[in-house]
């Protein structure tokens, strides 16, 4: 299968003030992702995971400078025009966020927020957009999707909200889904359900998945390959099974030991 996403020598620097020297967030990060592949980005908080995820969609907040290349389906994400980026976002590559309550507009019914993705990509017929949204809400496992679409985000449970975000992200069948800590804000039982849904959707669609997490357990059950970020550098890039068996970098080893103390003691 061919390469879907290639990140080459990506450096991110945060400009605090004009006079101060920039703070480095990511240093020389390179990796690539094939079509339909699942990759986990593992790192502690502050390792630059979220900035990496945002840079893939060229959504870095003002004040963060990016160098290097991010190629997605032949498009240079960092240098593409705004219009070109916009047509890719939501249609070819989507993102779900960590905190579903703050990633949804509190003033808008959730059905309208899912339908908005279709409308942003040229669907003129509001009824059709809405019907597609309700259908998608059903497909991400929300019961009574028609009624649920009429509710506001604060009226839903955490897991339901994350499913709504997922429905919006998957509505137009993207080739890549970037998920930034999609389960960290959820209860453990709900976490498992959402991960299961994520895997099922990924397989069903043959979609590539880039899952950002600090939790090796989450990545181990979801991703074929894992890259480890440590202090802004990519320190390991290996099949997840191999990483679990014989981690090379000291930081990876610490992470692996942390989830399997009993096994490794044998």
């Amino acid at each position, binding site marked *: 299968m061919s390469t879907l996403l290639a990140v080459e020598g990506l450096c991110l620097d945060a400009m605090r003030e004009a006079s101060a020297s920039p703070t480095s967030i990511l240093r020389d990060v390179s990796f690539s992702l094939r079509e339909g592949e699942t990759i986990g980005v593992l790192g502690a908080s502050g390792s630059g995971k979220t900035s990496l995820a945002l840079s893939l969609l060229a959504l870095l907040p003002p004040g963060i400078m990016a160098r290097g290349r991010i190629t997605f389906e032949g498009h240079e994400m960092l240098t593409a025009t705004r219009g070109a980026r916009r047509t890719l976002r939501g249609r070819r590559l989507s993102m779900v966020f960590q905190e579903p309550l703050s*990633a949804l507009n509190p003033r808008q019914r959730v059905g309208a927020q899912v339908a908005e993705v279709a409308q942003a990509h040229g669907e003129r017929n509001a009824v059709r957009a809405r019907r597609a949204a309700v259908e998608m809400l059903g497909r991400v496992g929300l019961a009574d999707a028609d009624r649920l679409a009429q509710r506001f985000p604060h009226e839903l449970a955490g897991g339901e909200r994350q499913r709504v975000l997922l429905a919006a992200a998957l509505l137009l069948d993207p080739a890549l889904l970037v998920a930034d800590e999609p389960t960290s804000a959820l209860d453990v039982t709900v976490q498992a359900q959402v991960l299961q849904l994520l895997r099922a959707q990924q397989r069903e669609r043959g979609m590539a998945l880039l899952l950002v997490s600090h939790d090796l357990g989450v990545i181990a059950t979801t991703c074929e390959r894992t890259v480890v970020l440590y202090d802004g550098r990519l320190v390991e890039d290996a099949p997840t099974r191999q990483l679990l068996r014989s981690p090379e970098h000291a930081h990876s080893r610490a992470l692996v030991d942390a989830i399997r103390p009993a096994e490794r003691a044998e």
Partner: protein
Amino acid sequence: MAAPTFQRLHRDRAAQIAGGVLAVVALAALLAPWLAPFDPTAQPDPVGLRLAAPSIAHPLGTDPFSRDVLSRMLHGARVSLGVAAGAMLLSVTLGTALGALAAMRGGWVDSLVSGVVDVLIAMPRLLVVIALVATFGTLSPWWLVALIGGSGWLTTARIVRAEMRDHLQREYVIAARALGAAPWRIVWRHLLPAAAPQMAVAAALALAAVIPLEAALSFVGLGIQPPLPSWGNVLLDGTDYLTSAWWLVLAPVGAVTLTVGSALVLADRLRAAIASEAREQ
């Protein structure tokens, strides 16, 4: 949240009363031709009915030309409130558009808009408008709307820009962008509803500012021209008789005070509703 903020206002006693007063005044203005007992410009008896004190036939008395003051006040409300409402709408629309533009585009566009606002806001509005009217000569009510509205967008632009910049950094807006929403869609679907309560405050304050402005212009003879009545020129007709015919002054001053006061109370209660909404989140 937009809807709950306005719902909260519905339950607010002071807001209810202020809203009621504004509604009554607006209704009186709309229905003036049917409510007014006399023709506002008719001078039935300039000698015998000159400066008649309030009576059953003339509840607010008559003016120096024997015209019925109540009828002039009612018809004046149409003109005064019409100009005020038009100017308020114009200034809020203009301010919202420019504030949104500055917030969305950032960079030099933002610097330009903010700079212009900072400079113009330092100028006394009444004097600027008087200078402009004096330059162009007397103006039709439409030009008055354009002039008063066109000079009042500054605060709205400031409020809208600040509110939108705040929401632009929130995760739900970033999430909408992550799914391909264009800037105009983000403004329309996400930022305008978010800024709506603050815009309503700006609109109420704008109304409170333009009513006295129109009255002041008409009072110095640069606004609405006689014989067309407005609250400002009813007052103008009365100033010479302040000691002998108090009703001539009391009626327009009372009307302006009541209307502006109600608008200010409404703005204040709306602000309180926004604040308590924010506390609960």
